């Protein structure tokens, strides 16, 4: 996936599992966490390998895929909207809920805005207009309200629960 051109100008990233992945400086730049390492005086592009103990090889390659596709499609002005949409749909289709959440954590750790916004939108679309039960399950939230407390919230916020059936 990531290519190593000569001479070596790429940034080496080591996910918590799997081998080192090389990324172009342009891609690395979009990951704020990586960028702050690159700006560190002790960083030497040819030898330094940046370890990412919180990111798996799968997550890292997904994020790189996304950035690669979107930075390339920006260059071509016409008819990209549809193919971009298709890419985004395919990208999400491969992700089960758990994987999506884990990827969100990875994107947050790497602080990569474009992917973070995209994933937050995806999560938002998932929970939009869903039952409380679904949203709790999706987020893995443990309900720590008593029955009375929950009823009280529903009653005092009845204006926001109009048309919503209780689980």
């Amino acid at each position: 996936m990531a290519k190593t051109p000569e001479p070596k100008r790429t940034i080496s990233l080591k996910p918590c599992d799997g081998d080192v992945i090389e990324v172009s400086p342009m891609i690395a730049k979009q990951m704020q966490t990586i960028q702050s390492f690159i700006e560190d005086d002790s960083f030497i592009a040819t030898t330094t390998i940046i370890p990412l103990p919180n990111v798996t090889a799968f997550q890292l390659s997904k994020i790189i895929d996304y950035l690669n596709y979107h930075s390339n499609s920006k260059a071509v002005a016409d008819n990209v909207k549809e193919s971009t949409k298709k890419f985004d749909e395919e990208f999400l289709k491969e992700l089960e809920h758990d994987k999506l959440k884990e990827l969100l954590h990875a994107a947050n750790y790497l602080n990569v805005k474009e992917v973070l916004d995209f994933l937050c939108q995806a999560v938002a679309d998932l929970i939009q207009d869903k039952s409380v039960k679904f949203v709790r399950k999706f987020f893995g939230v443990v309900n720590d309200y008593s029955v009375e407390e929950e009823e009280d919230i529903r009653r005092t916020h009845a204006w926001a629960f109009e048309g919503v059936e209780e689980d």
Partner: protein
Amino acid sequence: MMNRRIWKNSNRSRSRIKKGEDKLSNLPDELIHRILSFVDAKTAVQTSVLAHRWKHIWISLPFLNFHNSSFDHDFLFQDFVLNFLANRDSDSKIDVLKFECTGDELEENGAPTVDSVVDYVASKDIQNLTIVADYVLESLPRLFASRTLTVLNLSNISTETSIFEFVSLQKLYLVDCKFEIRDVEILDPFRGCPKLSFLLFHSCQFYGKFDTFKIHAPQLTELSISCLRVDDEFDYECVIELFTPKLRYFSYDDPFNLYAFSIQAKLHFLEKLVIDVDSSEVLNAMDNTEGNTLSVKFIELFEAMGSAKFVYLSPDIVKVLSSFPALFMGRLSPFTRVQTFKFIVDVSSSFPLPTNVMAYLLGGSPGFTRYRRQGSYTAKQSG
């Protein structure tokens, strides 16, 4: 040293995520806000019943999306919006607010919800506001008080406000809006927006007696005008005056005609020009005075926008020009540095490309050497 920093970093995020607990609930508020900034406000409030931690998240969200689509009736939607604002933490700022009420006209005798929203955000350091509602917006001038608003997007609204005074506004989108203009001869709506860099109006109606529509925007770089109507019609008398010395992108589209433009400051920086005019009516007319007038307007506009590198036109423009060769023959080509020339719609191979018009349009651009029939006409990159 390197490693220490990395480990410090990862330890910090690790401590946030204890094993066995739900991961997303332990996300920082900032990230939960980020997710909830994409959901409808109704869904956002409903997260308060998830668990204690979520109870008060919605009251300080800086991104709000109000949409009537998740309500059975508009009055329930309006009731929701007013309750939301009343129960929200009034000290929390709002960066982005979208209010969309599509479908029927908002009941005027009902609660003036939109005005309440405008009044609420005017004092909240809002940056980005979108209002989509078929509604007479009387509160618009009260938004002038905002010193932070940078993007304003208005759709479907009607207003008597025709002079905008948004000191910090950079982008303004006006779509399907109606403006009631008082008796002035020169309409000059944007002079009070000194930072405006992007302006789009699409299908907007202006009602009034003005004959000059002035766009005074010294910082404007992008301008899109489409289907501008005055008193429900295409106003032949109306001249659009541009004082936009920094303009880089100009787009005009109209299914009918082209307004006369008067350029008050030279457009040295114009890069991209998109003109889409459907002139079939003019072309089919028995009398050709109109076609003549239209051709003159095209030529004048091209000459004013001669620095464009990317020129996209509708085929009708070439057709109209080719009917009046006397108007451009012997004239210098208006453009001097075209790199890409394109037709906006696909040109059928039966459309005979008039060589005299093409030579007139492209002959003055040394960088442009290649003609192609289909798709785009792209110059060979020299060097």
